[in-house]
């Protein structure tokens, strides 16, 4: 078997399916329609939807006419294209959910060895503003609740405008911006201060040097707002404050954190971003955010927000904790014996009708 591929079977396979069913059940309750996307698509779709670097990890091969194809590397690209084309005339907003396998020929890091993963997620397309952001956050929180992980999970929220506003204020060229972003991303406070201090000319905004340390509940936002000195960052912080109001009103504040140092995916997301962590998993198990630019590359610019969960990572956490969502662990089967094959089949049928689990003695 090639590296990074594996089988799933037995209790684990049942649990995995139960995780998916739980999530899809929540999506259904919120009015999301399931959509299945092609397993093979043009590589260009993923390149447009995920960016060149992420898409470059896909399994690629050529079609009979020489065009480059790829195994499904993510779901969002394909759903966004469907929204802009197949559902162009459908009333907005569109609500889609999915559960499917994704494939990456090259894993993201050496901690990640898998090349086939299972994702479950949803996209809310054609609705902007705080309402849509909060709906998706509430759906995600309900999925974790449904899976029994409410007390063991942590959502971090941020807004890309916080960093982008500061980068503008600092007048960083793309290369310097990326260096600063990497330092913030690694929470390297000393390195960040040093780099900002070395920067020639102009005053350094007080908030920039503090980004790596501004995480927590409402107090992190309050601290940030007292330091902010540009309009774009201020707007982003105001939007986050609105999110936090709703988080408190929903009684979710214990499971949520503001994390202004979360600066991943800045080229992709355009507003709210969030990540989901669960105790027992060494990496995040999901995340999402607002991506208002993506659909434009398929010919129809409209707001969109969504998130995705790593089904395998969640299954692993639940399995290790001994959780039995499927109610099937240690299942008993009745054995059916008898004189002739037809007698045995009939007896098995009768018992099956009574809801018993039956295995034929062959």
């Amino acid at each position, binding site marked *: 078997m090639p590296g990074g591929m594996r089988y799933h079977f037995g209790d684990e396979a049942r649990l995995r399916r139960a995780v998916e069913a739980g999530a899809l059940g929540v999506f259904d309750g919120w009015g999301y329609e399931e959509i299945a996307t092609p397993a093979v698509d043009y590589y260009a779709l993923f390149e447009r939807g995920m960016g060149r670097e992420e898409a470059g990890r896909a399994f690629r091969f050529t079609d009979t006419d020489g065009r480059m194809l790829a195994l499904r590397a993510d779901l969002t690209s394909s759903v966004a294209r469907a929204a802009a084309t197949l559902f162009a005339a459908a009333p907005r907003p569109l609500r889609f959910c999915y559960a499917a396998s994704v494939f990456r020929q090259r894993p993201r*890091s*050496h901690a990640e060895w898998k090349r086939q993963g299972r994702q479950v997620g949803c996209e809310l397309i054609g609705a902007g503003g705080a309402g849509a952001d909060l709906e998706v956050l509430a759906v995600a929180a309900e999925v974790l609740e449904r899976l029994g992980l409410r007390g063991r999970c*942590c959502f971090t929220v941020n807004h890309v405008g916080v960093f982008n506003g500061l980068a503008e204020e600092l007048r960083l060229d793309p290369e310097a911006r990326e260096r600063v972003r990497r330092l913030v991303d690694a929470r390297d406070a*000393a390195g960040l201060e040093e780099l900002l201090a070395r920067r020639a000319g102009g005053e350094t905004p007080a908030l920039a040097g503090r980004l790596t340390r501004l995480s927590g509940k409402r107090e992190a936002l309050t601290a940030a707002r007292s330091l902010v000195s540009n309009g774009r960052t201020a707007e982003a912080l105001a939007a986050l404050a609105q999110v936090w109001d709703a988080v408190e009103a929903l009684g979710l504040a214990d499971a949520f*954190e503001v994390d202004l140092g979360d600066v991943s995916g800045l080229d992709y997301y355009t507003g709210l971003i969030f*990540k989901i962590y669960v105790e027992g998993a060494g990496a995040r198990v999901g995340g999402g955010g607002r991506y208002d630019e993506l659909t434009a590359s398929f010919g129809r610019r409209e707001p969109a927000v969504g998130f995705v969960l790593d089904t395998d990572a969640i299954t692993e956490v639940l399995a290790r904790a001994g959780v039995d969502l499927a109610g099937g662990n240690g299942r008993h089967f009745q054995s059916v014996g008898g004189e002739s094959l037809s007698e045995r089949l009939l007896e098995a049928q009768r018992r099956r009708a009574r809801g018993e689990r039956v295995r034929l003695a062959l």
Partner: protein
Amino acid sequence: MLTIAIAKGRMQAEALALLARAGVRVSEAALATRRLAVEDEAGGYRFIFVKPADVPVYVEHGIADCGVVGRDVLLETGADVLQPLDLKIGGCRLAVAAKAGAGGARAGVLHVATKYPRVAAAHFGSRGVPVEIIELSGSVELAPVLGLADCIVDLVETGRTLAENGLAVVETIAESTARLVVNRASYQLKAASVSKLIEALSEAARGEQKQGKP
């Protein structure tokens, strides 16, 4: 409880001393045993002692929440971990060294012996120098002496080993000190204990620096 992976060897004693000053003490008795996992006296931390290159592995997988490891290792492994603190201990540098007075490459390709193949390839790659990387796992200084390589990329602390083998630093690639690294999930899920540790260590590291460089 937080699990902290410590790089064995060169930096271990210094790291434990720094932790002790930060209020995290491991008893001598516990260290005297050959156990690879020990708890601190207050029972708030578990320490595991692993090879330097394995520290980022344990932390990246979340088996250890935090780790203490040299920047040289982080540069080489490219591990996806948070690096909130420069501990200012175990100072040394990653450098290119060659036989004193030796000319450049043989036959147009520079042969580089190293324990840091990624760092070496990136360094020479960024300046367009064609190289052949020869990966070794120790005693790298021998390679130029015996003619296996034209130069080496290695960690240089005092330069004594280099000098004793007739080598000299040609160029410094990067300065390296020990870093506190943190798993991305632990940073969120154990936020309170992690930031307490960062605070305490940053305090202790500042004290150390004042002491060391009056």
